[in-house]
């Protein structure tokens, strides 16, 4: 039994490492995501709103239309507003050009400091917020709230994102690396060929799972080390805890892949099902953004996704230095899901096409 599992483990690994396009993509993809988001969310370049400023243009200072309103501003109000952080002020020389941008929500507000007027699209939510900010700069009322600086380590977005990207990479690699591969084997007859040898289904499945977990560790380690060296990310918790979490997370998602691959013999069908599973999982497992404020049913739904628990656990370990005991809920959920999907996939597994 061990010899057969070892043989298939070796064969699958050779197949993976020699498929340079797939292997390269597995490694390159997370780097590209992190680099892209680091650039996008660099604080210096981070803008939340865009405001157009008219210079040297003959404007129709009273222009208004069905969706565009015009109001007046004070000099000191404008000067104070220009100092607001995270607003990108874009200069325009042609009034009509700027107005087109406003109507198409490409800018959130348009100001003409000379005529002391600003224009706002009535249908732009961001325009509404920017107007509130503009008005607030003129108010000098005392606030009842006192500002207090928060203490403790701040976590930039890219560092918060990093565990999510690792989790997402594990998800894609696990789902497609096992689910899609097994379906391809079934479609092209390789599974049928194995089925007439003394190889047992559980030996074949075990070899696929062990191989994929091994490959997941290798690719995740390379991505982890690369990102640590390039971006200076740190894991504030134990590496062993992280390893245990990644093992369970990887195993649970490989098991999901096995369920998809249990019977299907169509690559197109399997691809569709894997997309149906992976895309909602990617968006509802807090890989990219927090679900704080999301509707309760969305949060409840996300609890049934293994990636949610993998990413949450990884963030707790990497960002907050949590111990295994502190992520026991995530570990328990991942163990339960792994068993459920693995048993289901094994029961329904068939060598041949139906």
């Amino acid at each position, binding site marked *: 039994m061990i010899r057969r599992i070892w043989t298939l483990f070796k064969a699958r690994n050779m197949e993976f490492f020699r498929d340079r396009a797939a292997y390269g993509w597995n490694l390159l993809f997370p780097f590209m995501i992190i680099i892209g988001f680091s650039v996008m969310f660099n604080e210096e370049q981070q803008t939340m709103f865009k405001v157009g400023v008219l210079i040297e243009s003959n404007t129709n200072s009273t222009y208004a239309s069905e969706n565009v309103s015009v109001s007046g501003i004070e000099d000191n109000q404008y000067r104070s507003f220009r100092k607001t952080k995270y607003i990108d002020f874009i200069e325009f020389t042609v009034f009509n050009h700027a107005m087109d941008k406003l109507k198409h929500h490409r800018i959130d507000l348009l100001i003409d400091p000379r005529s002391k007027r600003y224009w706002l699209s009535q249908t732009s939510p961001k325009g509404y917020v920017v107007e509130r900010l503009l008005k607030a700069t003129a108010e000098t009322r005392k606030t009842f709230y006192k500002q207090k600086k928060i203490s403790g380590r701040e976590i930039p977005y890219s560092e918060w994102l990093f565990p999510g990207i690792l989790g997402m990479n594990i998800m894609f690699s696990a789902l497609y690396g096992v689910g899609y591969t097994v379906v391809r084997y079934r479609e092209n007859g390789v599974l049928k060929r194995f089925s007439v040898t003394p190889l047992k289904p559980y030996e074949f499945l075990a070899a696929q799972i062990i191989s994929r977990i091994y490959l997941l560790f290798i690719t995740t380690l390379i991505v982890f080390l690369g990102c640590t060296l390039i971006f200076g990310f740190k894991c504030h918790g134990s590496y062993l805890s992280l390893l245990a979490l990644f093992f369970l997370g990887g195993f649970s998602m490989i098991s999901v892949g096995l369920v998809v691959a249990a019977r299907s013999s169509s690559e197109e069908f399997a691809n569709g099902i894997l997309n149906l599973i992976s895309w909602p999982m990617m968006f509802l497992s807090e890989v990219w953004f927090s679900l704080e404020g999301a509707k309760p049913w969305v949060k409840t739904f996300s609890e049934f996704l293994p990636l949610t628990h993998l990413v949450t656990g990884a963030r707790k370990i990497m960002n907050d230095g949590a111990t295994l005991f502190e992520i026991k809920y995530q570990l328990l959920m991942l163990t339960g899901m792994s068993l459920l999907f693995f048993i289901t996939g094994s029961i329904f597994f068939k060598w*041949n096409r139906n």
Partner: protein
Amino acid sequence: MNIVLEVQNLTKIYPGIKAVDGVSFSIEQGVCFGLLGPNGAGKTTTIEVIEGIVPPTSGQVLYKGKHRGARFREEVGIQFQNTELPAFLSVKETLETFRNLYGRKSDMDELVETCYLQEILSSDNRKISGGQKQRLLLAMALANDPELIFLDEPTTGLDPQSRRHLWDIVRKIKTKKKTVILTTHYMEEAQILCDIIAIMDYGKIIASGSPEKLLEEQCSGIAVILHEHLDEKILNSIQGKWIRSKDGVEIYPEHLNDCIKTLMDMKINLSTLTIRPQNLEDLFLKLTGKRLRA
């Protein structure tokens, strides 16, 4: 002689079609048994049921007198009609992978030599030719030094040279007293390789025995082939049977001399005439009214 395989009243019904209809036969050790028939006759279904890939609707298969179990998997070698090879592995790695799945293994060097794989051992599976692929698939079927070997249309789609290579390998296997079950729709292949043949049509075995015996008993005459379009009146005047072929006519006369004389009397151009002994293809035609390679 020892009976290696016994098939008893095997039936396989798919929705709307009876693919195998009460097939029975037994195969002695060391025999090359050929299942002969046109596409859709039920050959592949029959051997896939025997191999254990497809469950039978009824009937049973006995290997060495017992129901097939773990021993059957360990002692048989199978070459399917259409199987892809594992991608990104070399020929040698593929063979080693399959050898390691068995407790009993063929000697690697002997296997490579038997199947003429020396020159492509380090080649990627994706880069070998159709004939080389078939030889590798055959080597994979021999990876466990099997006692019973299934070859499902091993030469279909191959060029004549690759086909002869495959025949050589099967002949070598036969010299080692291995039992072979071969399906084919090439009459020549069956006649060259098989000791016993069973002709299948519509899921049934319609004749079986050694090729020589079958021909002697049922098809011992000669065939006159003429690449001319003859009138039906002329053909009916000849004693015997006739059938129109792609570019002429095939006549199975009761008396050759009378047949030739009739054709000459009718002033038929005989420059394209050939005469040959009847073969398995003629036998199949006689039994079913159809050509083998339909």
